[in-house]
């Protein structure tokens, strides 16, 4: 094993451990109940999930400028997910319920992002 290989191996191991640690950190449960929906960098909606009725299911339809759509569902237990999309891959639907602060629901074809955000109490 040459010196170059040893350095490369050390770098690879470091990246792997750093990535594993930050992945665990990112997947911690969310503290905030505020959610932000953005499309193409612009904020469309920002609301507090805790203010929604626990048992009622609400749906928001978001039309994308390029003709597609996503249906966002706020369901039981104040959870939010994308329930329907007309994109071919359906990654956003498969992502399921928004759980942690670090991991947003992303729909790449429609440039839609749903994520937890800080409560805007400071601004009020």
């Amino acid at each position: 094993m040459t010196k170059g290989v040893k350095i490369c191996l050390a770098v690879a191991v470091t990246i792997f451990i750093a990535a594993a640690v930050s992945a665990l950190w990112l997947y911690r449960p969310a503290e905030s109940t505020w959610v932000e929906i953005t499309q193409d960098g612009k904020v469309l909606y920002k609301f507090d999930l805790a203010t929604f009725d626990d048992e009622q299911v609400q749906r928001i339809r978001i039309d994308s400028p390029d003709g597609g759509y996503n249906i966002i569902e706020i369901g039981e237990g104040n959870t939010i997910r994308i329930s329907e999309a007309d994109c071919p891959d359906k990654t956003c639907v498969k992502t399921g319920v928004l759980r942690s602060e670090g991991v947003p629901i992303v729909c790449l074809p429609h440039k839609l992002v749903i994520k937890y955000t800080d409560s805007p109490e400071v601004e009020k």
Partner: protein
Amino acid sequence: MKTKRLAELSMLTAAALIMFIVELQLPDLSAIQGVKLGLANIFTVYAVYRFTPKETFLLVLTRILLGSIFAGKIMAMIYSLAGGMLCLLGMLLLKKVIPINYMWLCSIFGAIFHNTGQIAAAIAITRSFAVVANYPILLVTGCIAGAFTGLCAQFVVQRLTNTTLKKEKDE
């Protein structure tokens, strides 16, 4: 010699394409976009050590272009290109430091570069840093997948050198 090389490259491209299509038929490993084995990468790693940079570049470019068309995901081509090209560039540079019997290590770096390229493309397209959240988990799975594909390529090279040596002895 030139024709033989061309035939060999074409065959590798075809084999890489088949692997790529076969992998598409497998169910998604995870809801996170981009988490996959990247079986076609076996051929890229192999080509990096067997062919010139130019030839490898052509192989990867052809595979990505045709693969995206066959898969019917033209949008995904931008991600594939960004990831594939950065991965190739990184592996070609690292090849100078990492000898052929540590191919798997080079492949791990290839996976890291691939994920980096894809995340960069996703940031550029969505104009949001939200996708960065997937980066660590992509790196973890990418390292494992990279080691796997790298080892596959390593075994191919070992088998090939064994048979070639045997043939030379027999002659």
